[in-house]
């Protein structure tokens, strides 16, 4: 196990290095730069723009800029945002809380709901419920999030006045109930798509297990159906879900770009989008590296957990 871990960690370091290089190159080679927003307004002269470019070090060759950035990163310095004039880690820390709040609640909702729909659909395959769930999932997957978000706002906020039209809480009122009230809208939108995804995975995973010989054996032994489903089928069907959960971990922190924008949720997704728009190189690179680390970490944890949950996997791996 430890050999496996060390091998995976080494791979991860190499991968991170490659990700940083590609990310840095693409970001800097994209036309425009952090100063183009000032050029647009016509308020700053070219002399001012050229001076700022030199002060930010943007006039140096790209490889020099990359090596300098990497040297600082290895020394623990993630850089200072061009737009905020604050350390990148401080900025990320300020945005990660709201994202975690939104993503955890919507993921939890989607997992529970999705698992339930998926299991029921598999057990009563081709029933009316299964057909409706399948159609519903297809619709949910096809609906553009931004559109659905706006519909929710127009129906429940503007029309009925039941839900706030966005924000994390009312200014001056940060109570738990107020926050919960604000969470409903974006949570429903995010959960809609994820529920569809989770239910489909759960259904197919369950179907696979349900037709195995040992389930038939259990039935032949005369065990009660509920007992078979929970003790024999579900436990095995949940195995593939560990991998999916592991791969889902990064999105918990990288946030939901579209939903955060529509519901004015001050999270990571919006920070990323804004930073790209401003060509705020240090912040974009910071978020990119953090996400890459989380992806690698997520899949590593999933693999380890899988080995623990199903001892056969580890045996095959050695």
């Amino acid at each position: 196990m430890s050999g496996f871990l060390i091998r995976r960690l080494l791979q991860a370091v190499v991968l991170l290095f490659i990700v940083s290089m590609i990310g840095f190159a693409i970001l800097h080679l994209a036309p425009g730069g952090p100063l183009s927003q000032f050029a647009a307004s016509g308020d700053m002269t070219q002399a001012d723009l050229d001076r700022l470019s030199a002060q930010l070090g943007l006039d140096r060759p790209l490889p020099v800029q990359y090596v300098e950035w990497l040297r600082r990163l290895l020394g623990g310095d993630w850089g200072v945002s061009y737009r905020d004039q604050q350390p990148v880690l401080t900025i990320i820390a300020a945005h990660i809380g709201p994202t975690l709040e939104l993503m955890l609640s919507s993921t939890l909702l989607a997992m529970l709901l999705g698992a339930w729909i998926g299991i029921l659909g598999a057990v009563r395959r081709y029933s009316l419920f299964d057909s409706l769930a399948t159609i519903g999932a297809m619709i949910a997957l096809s609906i553009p999030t931004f559109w659905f978000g706006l519909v929710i706002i127009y129906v429940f906020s503007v029309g009925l006045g039941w839900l706030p039209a966005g924000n994390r809480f009312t200014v001056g009122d940060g109570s738990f109930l107020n926050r919960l009230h604000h969470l409903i809208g974006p949570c429903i939108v995010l959960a809609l798509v994820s529920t569809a995804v989770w239910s489909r995975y759960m259904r197919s995973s369950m179907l696979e297990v349900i037709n195995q010989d040992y389930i038939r054996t259990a039935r032949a032994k005369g065990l009660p159906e509920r007992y078979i489903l929970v003790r024999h089928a579900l436990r095995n069907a949940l195995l593939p879900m560990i991998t999916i959960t592991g791969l889902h971990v990064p999105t918990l922190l990288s946030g939901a770009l579209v939903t955060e924008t529509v519901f004015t949720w001050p999270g990571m997704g919006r920070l990323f989008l804004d930073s790209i728009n401003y060509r705020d190189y240090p912040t974009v690179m910071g978020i990119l590296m953090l996400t890459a680390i989380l992806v690698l970490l997520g899949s590593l944890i999933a693999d380890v957990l899988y080995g623990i949950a199903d001892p056969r996997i580890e045996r095959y791996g050695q």
Partner: protein
Amino acid sequence: MGSALPAMRRRDFLSLSAAGIAASIGFGARAQSGAAVPPPPKERRGQVVVGLSQEPKSFNPLMPGVEVDEVVWTSVFSCLWMAHPDGTFVPDLAVALPSEENGGIAEGGLVWTVKLREGVVWHDGTPFTAEDVKYSLELIMAPGFKSRTRVGHDLVRDIVVKGPHEISWRMERAFAPYLAQLANTQIVPKHILSKADDPNTAAFNGSPIGTGPFRWSERRPGDSITLVANERYHGDGPYLEGVVLKYIPDMTALYAQFRTGQVDFVPISGIPANYYDEATKLPGRKVAVAPSGNIEVIMPNLEHPAFAEKAVRQALYASINKEAIVDALYYGVPKPTESYSPRESWAYNPDLPKHEYDLAKANQLLDEAGWKRGGRGIREKNGNRLEFDLSTTTGNALREQCQQLMMQDWQQIGVAIKINNMPGAVIWGDFYVRSQFQALLVGTAFRTGVDPDPAPRFASDAIPVKGGSGGNYMQWVNAEADKLMKEGQITFNQEKRKEIYFKVQEIVREELPILPLFQYAPLEGIKEGLIGYRPNINQRQNAWNMGTWYWAR
């Protein structure tokens, strides 16, 4: 006028002339029933939630920032004097505006002396003195400091503190726009910033301390900024307990929050034009057509063979159906213009020749200039075809439709264009500042800060690709305009400057280094009962005077 607005048709409203403009600008100060404006409350009360589609992030007012950042700057900081909507400068940290008459500006504009207000204190209680002014002006020019702009400041020499409340300096050469530049230069506290290791990354930049009507309270990144009343403010107000700047990135979501009442005021990007009709009918909400200093223009690259000739530019201009663009695409909201100057500016020339949509005249102009129709009906001359790329930022549906209208019209006079749009960050990069475009459809300002001097955009020594330091990206060279603009910079008498800029506008209208389309007029939304809103083209945003705002009840 306010209550009559929803009942009126849009076109009627917009065709109201000077009186209408005055009324629409002043409407915020009117009570709903046409009764007298209620006086400011005796005790501070209430707060205003300002909805912004970009997040304010740059809080050191001497460092680079955009319009939303200036909402923070004008609320938290003060300048020596304040630019009001009519273009006058009203003393703020200064006691009086220096002029040649009162001796504040002497030796033909080379020596400036400013007397400062006494009894002003920073938000932390430290008294404000001339040392702060000296420090601010010197910081702008400090070698490593990432200052926003050094225009004008780079001419300042030998700053002398003559007493705790008097300062003077010498100018390398006379530069009249410096008055306006100082109206947009916030003074920062020496006692805090001078102690920082590096002013670029000082803690101050994340929690600013100023002398303005509001104090910094709290920032929730990605969400909001809270400012609270400065009880010791030296000027009028503040009458509100506080101001919340709320960041709502999606324009539709922002409008929805204005509708539901979560947001009281929507400045800068404002309300999308397609919601204009609906918004004017909302109960308890008002919509102002707020003038902006930005002008939408076609910016040709004059080094491109198609644009080198004046006749071509005039023909292109005559075949733009401006009325259709403004009325059909922009819901009749902005006003067509012939000038690069906003019409509210004191330097605006109202007597420029009116644009006429005349395809026959355009064809005639090109015929006379020797452009003959060749293959596919496209005109040619000396081996050059009359075709070019027209670029603008992607994702702006109105501009894209505008391009198509122009394409159709220009086709009829034998001009072919290719639409080549790119994201904003690309357009405003080297493509723009290194004059790599052929023609652009842009909205931009042609002045020096808030001074009407257009030299940074039109002077021949302001062409970056030719080593200049300004923003003359169309690469226009005109000796007469150069001479006039130089004269304008050393003339301090506003009447005389006005004459000069009238002439510059005549030349620009004749030579067409830019084809002016219309002056931007963002639709700003404001809740009824909020008093004090005064759109101001001499500031870069209309929350400039929030210290004097209050709720009617």
